[in-house]
């Protein structure tokens, strides 16, 4: 049987200028203009946003949750990448 359900879209909202768009939820819609309309009606009824992005959910590629160790552990032992790693003389430590 032909699939009748509207596709799923992920919604990203910029709450005010100067901030990033942030994921806030999903809507079902047949196309992008209607997804934007639905996102506006559902997610910005109380001045939550000034800009909306919608992305069809099956177009998003995500990292594998099972691969978390390989992906992210290598950063654990590289504390020299942080400014706090360097203890400088008191006179210049606030540089």
């Amino acid at each position, binding site marked *: 049987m032909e699939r009748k359900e509207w596709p*799923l879209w992920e919604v990203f909202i910029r709450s005010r200028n100067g901030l990033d768009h942030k994921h806030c939820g999903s809507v079902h819609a*047949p196309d992008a203009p209607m997804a934007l309309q639905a996102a506006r009606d559902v997610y910005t009824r*109380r001045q939550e946003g000034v800009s909306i992005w919608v992305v069809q*959910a*099956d177009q998003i590629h*995500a990292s594998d*949750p099972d691969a978390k160790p390989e992906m992210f552990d290598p950063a654990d032992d590289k504390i020299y990448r942080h400014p706090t790693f360097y203890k400088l003389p008191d006179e210049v430590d606030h540089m």
Partner: protein
Amino acid sequence: MYTQAIDVPDQQPEEKKRSATALESAAYQAEFDAKLARGDFIEAKDWMPEAYRKTLIRQISQHAHSEIVGMLPEGNWITRAPTLKRKAILLAKVQDEGGHGLYLYAAAETLGVSRDELVEALHAGKAKYSSIFNYPTLTWADIGVIGWLVDGAAIMNQIPLCRCSYGPYARAMVRVCKEESFHQRQGFDLLLALMRGTEAQRQMVQDATNRWWWPVLMMFGPHDSDSQHGEQSAKWGIKRISNDDLRQKFIDAVVAQADVLGVTLPDPTLHWNEARGHYDHGDIDWGEFWNVVNGQGPCNRERLAERVKAWEDGAWVREGALAYSKKRRAEPARAA
């Protein structure tokens, strides 16, 4: 809500995991248990026991169904709201309930079910929703009492869910709770206005309070000793506070509110127990509760029939919009 549709490399990790060897399964289970013990969230694509997934689908979808069925008793009064201001408020509230349904269906979808499947289960009478919505809204005061008591009880239930172990559900609940606060306050405000009105209006508030009080106490579910899912849900970090504890917390909060309003709660045995530090209350009629849960409430049939009608009457719109979008996508190809 980080949906099931998102593409993850290595295809179907679910399938892979279901066919995992016993040894691998044990490792997944250990990791899952460790996450819960640390108070970490479980996210959509993480491994989880099948029973945890099933429990969440059942609970989140019931919750979503309750939101959209809950639109019906209140929608009943939109055209009869006494002023334009009250009408605008009620419209906004009913619109919120539709939104809450959407957040929750989306959270359920992250667990690998489609929204259409869930809605079909509701319409077929296979899925439950909160039995409170099977009671009628007879007067305008009912709209106020629903906001004050029904939404008040819902908030009591929902605040602990903002910390539940499943991330997408917890995030949906944070959003719901923010909006729910407006619902409760507008209800109390509506009742205050009636209480400052005529004797007949005060009577109306008292009558609505009398009718809703006991069904509202039933919203917290059976006593802990009779609760089917309580213990396992507590272990999984889905339910953080028990039915009876939430009910007690609610009663303790409402008594003072009823005083401010000037209504009497319809329980002659309700009194402060100094030793317990809580209010004692009368027995709840669980026969009535199970009757309504099992389909024999005053409005069960009407609510479900209205839902099904709305779904069927809207079918041509859903199909038309989908056909239009397909046609639009096909057009450039034809032109080329």
